[in-house]
């Protein structure tokens, strides 16, 4: 694997350090901030960025199936974090791939490491079975190598990429990266590049943690929207119950989609609940709060409940004859139950 170093900028002192993360957006955010001198863990990025959620959108289809999400929409974590921590979030979008790749080169030549939005499908370093048309993947470009000396026409450049959901740094040909950055469709990236500026040196955890937790808790248990938060989980359970009367193949695709959104690359496992538990634990230690440490343990149980649901879902998908809708509904309601307990506990004690 390629060592993580900026090839074309030998005078550039800051070597980018690739770190393996659970999820693309939180991983990129933490990576860019760390590179800018602010040490922030990935779970902190999720927690302070109010990344956790649950929503089931029956009319918003992905690949013909309703969208179920365990995290806030793409881009929301950075924006919230930029506001909370008080750094400037610089963003650029482009009209054409040429312009977008030139701008990327200019950033790299200036020694700047940038985040980029891209499609998953058109990134060749993704394993074939994981390539789907999801256009809001995030990665960091930290360097470039030219295929041939400039005197021979330059060759086509290869970009050095720190993709947080991969264990090691990756390489991607310029043409492929251009295609992935300029794909059209839902959540089209339009070549989005972003980087933080005026990054503060420290974080006021005592002020920000309660604020962030309150926001997430309110959304999960106090929103009067039936498809959001804990109510959303129960709503989804009722929908699964109703699938019994319909086409069995559709029922399997429907359930498979829910589990996929929970475990697919870039969601961190356990539908983000373990990462949030890690956030609560870190926050509890920094603020020396027994309540938060306790909440972390409860959130771990929630993550475990989601894994039980994922297991039941996978079994349901695999066994074509299975009619165990009741088992799925029970497992999902158990998730709702546990989640509600954690949030009510946090409401009462903070």
């Amino acid at each position, binding site marked *: 694997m390629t060592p993580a170093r900026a090839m074309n900028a030998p005078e550039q002192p800051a070597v980018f350090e690739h770190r*393996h*993360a*659970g999820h693309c957006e939180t991983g990129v955010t933490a990576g860019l901030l760390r590179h800018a001198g602010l040490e922030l863990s*990935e*779970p902190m990025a999720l927690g302070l960025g109010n990344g956790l959620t649950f929503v089931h959108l029956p009319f918003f*289809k992905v*690949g*013909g199936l309703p969208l179920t999400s365990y995290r806030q929409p793409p881009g929301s974590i950075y924006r919230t974090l930029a506001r909370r921590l008080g750094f400037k979030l610089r963003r650029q979008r482009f009209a054409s791939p040429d312009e977008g790749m030139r701008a990327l080169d200019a950033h790299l030549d200036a020694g700047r490491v940038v985040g980029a939005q891209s499609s998953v*499908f*058109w990134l*060749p370093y993704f*394993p*074939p*079975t*994981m*390539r*789907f*048309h999801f256009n809001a993947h995030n990665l960091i470009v930290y360097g470039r190598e030219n295929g041939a000396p400039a005197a021979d026409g330059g060759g086509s450049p290869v970009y050095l990429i720190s993709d947080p*959901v*991969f*264990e*090691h740094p990756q390489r991607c040909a310029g043409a492929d990266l251009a*295609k992935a950055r300029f*794909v*059209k*469709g*839902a959540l*089209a990236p339009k070549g989005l590049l972003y980087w933080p500026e005026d990054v503060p040196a420290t974080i006021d955890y005592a002020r920000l943690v309660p604020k962030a937790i309150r926001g997430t808790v309110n959304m999960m248990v106090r929103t009067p929207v039936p498809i959001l938060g804990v109510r959303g989980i129960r709503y989804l359970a009722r929908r699964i119950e109703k699938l019994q009367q319909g086409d069995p193949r559709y029922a*399997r*695709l429907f359930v*498979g*989609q829910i*589990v*996929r959104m929970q*475990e*697919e*690359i870039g969601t*961190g*496992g*356990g539908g983000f609940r*373990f*990462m949030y*538990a*890690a956030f609560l*634990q*870190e926050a509890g230690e920094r603020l020396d709060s027994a309540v938060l440490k306790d909440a*972390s343990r409860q959130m*771990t149980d929630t*993550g*475990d409940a989601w*894994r039980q649901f*994922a*297991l039941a*879902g*996978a*079994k349901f*998908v*695999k066994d074509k004859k299975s009619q165990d809708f009741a088992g799925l509904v029970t497992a999902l309601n158990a998730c709702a139950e546990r989640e509600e307990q954690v949030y009510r506990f946090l409401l009462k004690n903070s």
Partner: protein
Amino acid sequence: MKKTEVPQDSRPEYGGERRALYALDDRGQYATVPSAGWRADEIVNQQAVDEYRRLADEALQRARAGQVSALEFHMYDRRMELETLAQATGLWRWRVRRHLQPAVFARLSPALLQRYADALGVTVAQLRVIPSPGVIPSAARDLVRDDVAAGDPSSPRSSG
């Protein structure tokens, strides 16, 4: 989830890459633990891959029978459906649906063909061809390696 519970169900298609999962270590501290894969995750992921494969195969049969254009096959083969292809080309859905008719597709302008070819990542020549039985279109080879080759008895995979 404890560190010891992190699934390590090997998934060769990861190409040796692992995923980072948050789990508790012996002291009850959270840390990322590399996971080689999880069977449950593999099942639901494979389900999505298989569904596109099934749709592509059915479209291929229909295309060979002259009922639909090659476009329908290429669409599913590239893991798209009507909505995604319409968005990726910037065309109205009804237009894309119309282009799935063989007679209409055969008369498409070079510019429109190019638009489809770009969105699907194939050449115009490949786009117009209905693949013969047993032939994997070259543009799709990078994607079918795993999901089709595994079911092909002549593939070196099964012998090794």
